[in-house]
C-alpha cells in the first residue's frame, strides 16, 4: 500500500493539474504531493535501514534500503523543483510567452516524470525498471522542448533519439540476462525470472560468456541515460534548453535513477563474472566522461551548459566509485548521488532565476551578482563551492570516500587521473564563477523572491549538514550499499 501510494500520489497531482486551469493552488498541490513522497520515502527508509523489505502490488513493487534511499532523493529534489515550478510558470504566463494551457501540460508532464522515476526505483522486476526508465524519456521530451524555441526543438530531437537508441541497447542486455537466467541450472522458470531476488540467487550460475556481452550492452545503454561517454552528447543540449526546474530534476535525479539500474545489474553480473569485468567497463566510461567534461567545460559561456557538463563530470566520478565496488565506496557513491542532486538542483534553479531576472544565462552578461543580487549571488556562490567538492558540503566527504575506495582496490591510478580532471574543472569553474559573482560592475542591491530564496537555501543547508554529520544517513547508506555489494 505504502509503495503504491508513493507512485500514485505525484501522478494524482499531475492529473489534477492537467484538468484544472493553472492557478497557484494547483502548483501548491504539486508541492504537497512531492512533499508527501519525501515523507513516505523517509518512512520506508527508516523501515529499510533495519533490513526490512517493504513490498506492494503482489510483489511487483519492492523497497529495500537502496530503493528507499532513491525515493528519498527523488522526493527531496522533486520538492525543491516543484516550488520553483510555481515561480517559473507564473513568470512565463505573466510575460505572455505561453498561456495557462501550456502550464497545465507542464504540471502534468513533470508529475508523470516524477512518478516514472519512482516506479523505476521501486520495481522488483529489472525488465519493469527498463520500461519505467524509458517512460521517463517520453515524459521529458516535450518538457525539454517546452520553451518552443528552435534550439529547444533541436535539443528535444537529439534527446529522444539518442536516449531511445541507448536505452534500446540496455533492453538487449536485459534480454541476454533473461536468457542466461532461463538457462541457469536448477533455476525456476516463469515470469519472475527477471525479479531482483531471483536474479541475485541465480547469479553465480549465469553463463559468463553471455553475461559479459549483456553487461557491456547495459553499461553502454543505461550509461547513455546516465550521461556517460560515449553517448553523452544529448545531455548538455537537453539540460540547457529545458525549463530550470526540469533541468534540476533531470540533472539532479534522472541521471542517478539510470545509474541505480546500472548498480543493480552490476551486482548480478559481479556474481557471475567476479568484480573485474564490470570494474574495467566502468573505469573506462568514467575516465572518458571526466576527460570530455574537463575539456569542454573550459569553453562554456552559458551558465546552464556549464552545469550540464559538470553533471557529466560527477557521473564520471560516480562510475569510478562504483567501479571500486566496496561497501565503503558504494556508500560514498550514494552519498554523492544525494549531494550532487541537491547542489545541482539548487544551481539549476538559481540559474533559472538568473534567466528570469536578468533575461540571459550567458555568464559574460551577468557579472557581479553578489553585489547586485546578494541572496541569489550567495546561493550561486555556495552552490559552486559545494559542486567543486569543498568542505563543509557533503560532496567533499563522498569524493574522499570514493577515492579511498578506489585506492583500496588498486585503482589509485584512476583516482589520480580523476583528480587531475577535477583540478582542470576547478580552475575552469572558478574563473567563470569569479566573473559571475564578483565581476567588474557595481550596482544597487535588489532583493530576491522568497519563493526562490527559502527552498534553495534549504537545499544548500541540507547538503552542508550531510557533509558535517553522519547522522541520520550513515546506517541507511550502509544498508543500501550492502544490497548491491556481496
Amino acid at each position: 500500500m505504502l509503495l503504491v501510494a508513493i507512485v500514485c500520489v505525484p501522478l494524482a497531482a499531475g492529473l489534477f493539474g492537467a484538468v484544472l486551469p493553472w492557478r497557484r493552488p494547483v502548483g501548491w498541490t504539486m508541492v504537497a504531493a512531492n512533499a508527501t513522497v519525501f515523507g513516505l520515502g523517509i518512512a520506508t527508509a527508516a523501515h529499510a535501514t533495519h533490513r526490512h523489505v517493504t513490498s506492494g502490488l503482489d510483489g511487483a513493487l519492492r523497497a529495500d534500503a537502496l530503493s528507499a534511499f532513491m525515493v528519498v532523493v527523488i522526493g527531496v529534489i522533486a520538492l525543491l523543483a516543484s516550488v520553483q515550478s510555481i515561480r517559473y510558470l507564473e513568470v512565463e504566463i505573466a510575460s505572455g510567452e505561453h498561456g495557462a494551457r501550456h502550464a497545465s501540460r507542464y504540471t502534468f508532464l513533470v508529475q508523470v516524470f516524477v512518478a516514472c522515476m519512482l516506479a523505476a526505483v521501486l520495481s522488483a522486476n529489472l525488465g519493469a525498471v527498463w520500461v519505467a526508465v524509458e517512460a521517463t524519456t517520453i515524459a521529458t521530451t516535450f518538457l525539454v522542448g517546452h520553451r518552443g524555441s528552435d534550439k529547444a526543438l533541436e535539443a528535444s530531437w537529439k534527446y529522444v533519439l539518442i536516449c531511445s537508441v541507448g536505452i534500446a541497447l540496455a533492453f538487449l542486455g536485459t534480454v541476454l540476462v533473461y536468457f542466461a537466467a532461463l538457462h541457469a541450472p536448477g533455476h525456476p522458470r516463469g515470469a519472475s525470472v527477471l525479479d531482483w531476488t531471483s536474479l541475485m540467487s541465480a547469479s553465480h550460475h549465469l553463463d559468463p560468456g553471455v553475461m559479459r556481452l549483456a553487461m557491456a550492452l547495459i553499461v553502454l545503454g543505461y550509461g547513455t541515460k546516465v550521461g556517460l561517454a560515449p553517448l553523452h552528447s544529448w545531455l548538455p543540449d537537453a539540460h540547457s534548453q529545458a525549463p530550470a526546474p526540469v533541468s534540476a530534476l533531470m540533472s539532479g535525479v534522472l541521471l542517478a535513477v539510470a545509474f541505480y539500474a546500472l548498480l543493480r545489474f552490476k551486482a548480478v553480473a559481479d556474481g557471475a563474472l567476479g568484480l573485474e569485468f564490470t570494474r574495467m567497463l566502468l573505469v573506462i566510461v568514467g575516465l572518458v566522461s571526466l576527460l570530455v567534461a574537463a575539456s569542454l567545460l573550459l569553453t562554456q559561456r552559458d551558465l546552464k551548459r556549464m552545469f550540464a557538463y559538470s553533471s557529466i563530470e560527477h557521473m564520471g566520478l560516480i562510475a569510478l566509485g562504483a567501479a571500486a565496488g566496496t561497501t565503503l565506496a558504494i556508500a560514498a557513491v550514494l552519498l554523492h548521488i544525494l549531494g550532487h542532486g541537491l547542489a545541482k538542483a539548487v544551481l539549476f534553479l538559481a540559474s533559472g532565476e538568473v534567466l528570469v531576472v536578468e533575461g540571459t544565462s550567458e555568464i559574460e552578461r551577468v557579472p557581479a551578482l553578489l553585489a547586485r543580487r546578494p541572496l541569489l549571488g550567495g546561493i550561486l556562490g555556495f552552490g559552486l563551492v559545494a559542486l567543486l567538492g569543498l568542505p563543509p558540503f557533503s560532496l567533499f566527504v563522498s569524493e574522499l570516500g570514493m577515492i579511498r575506495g578506489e585506492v583500496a582496490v588498486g585503482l589509485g591510478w584512476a583516482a589520480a587521473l580523476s583528480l587531475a580532471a577535477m583540478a582542470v574543472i576547478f580552475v575552469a569553474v572558478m574563473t567563470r564563477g569569479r566573473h559571475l559573482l564578483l565581476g567588474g560592475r557595481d550596482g544597487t542591491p535588489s532583493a530576491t523572491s522568497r519563493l526562490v530564496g527559502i527552498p534553495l537555501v534549504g537545499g544548500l543547508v541540507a547538503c552542508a549538514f550531510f557533509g558535517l554529520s553522519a547522522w541520520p544517513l550513515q546506517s541507511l547508506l550502509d544498508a543500501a550499499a550492502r544490497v548491491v555489494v556481496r
Partner: protein
Amino acid sequence: MSSHPAFDVAELAAGVVLAGAVLALWRKDLRALIPILALQGAALSALAAVLAVSDGNLGLGVVAGVVLLAKGGVVPGLLARVVRADPGSRETAPLVNVPASLVAAGALVVLSYLVAGRITALAPDRLTRLVPLGLATVLVGFFVLVTRRKAVSQIVGLLLVDNGIALVAFLLTAGVPLLVELGASFDLLLVVAMLQVLATTIRARFGHVDLDQLRELHD
C-alpha cells in the same frame, strides 16, 4: 520445444528482418522504406505467433497481436506521415555512399556471427543459431543512425535497432515476460509518435528536416 514449421517460419522471419535492414541501406527514396518496415513487423509477429502455438503460450499470442498492430501498422503509418510532411525527400548525401554502406553491412554481419558465438554455445538449437541475423540488424540500424542525416532515415535507424532486438528476444527466450513486452511496445509507440510530432514541427519551422542543418547547439 518447437516443431518443424516453427523453425521454417523463424528462418524466414529472421531473413526478412535482416534483408529489410540491408534494403533500407540501399534505397535512397525514403518512401520505399515504409513497406520494408511494415514487412519486418509482420514477420516478427508471425514468428511470435508460431512460437505461441508450438509452446502453447497464450501470452505470447497476445504479444504477436500487439507486435502486428504496433510494428506492422501504427509505426509505419506514423512514419508515412513524416514522409508526407516532407514530400520528394531523398537521402541525397549520406556520409557513406551506398556501395560502401553495403560492404559495411557485410562486415557487420560477420561481426555479429563472431559476437554471437557465446550465445549460441549456451543453447545450441536451430532458433538460437539465427540470433546473429538479429544482432546484424541492430548493427545495421546503428550504421544508418550514424551515417544518414534525414529525420526519416534516423527514425528508420532506431526502428531497425528495435526490430533487431525484438528478433533476438523472440529467438532466445520466446520474448521477455508479457508485461515487460507490452510496456516496451507501448514505449516504442510513444517514442515514434513523439518523433513524428517533432519532425513535423521542425519541418514547419525550418522548411526541411535535414538534421545536418540544425547546428545551433554545437560546442
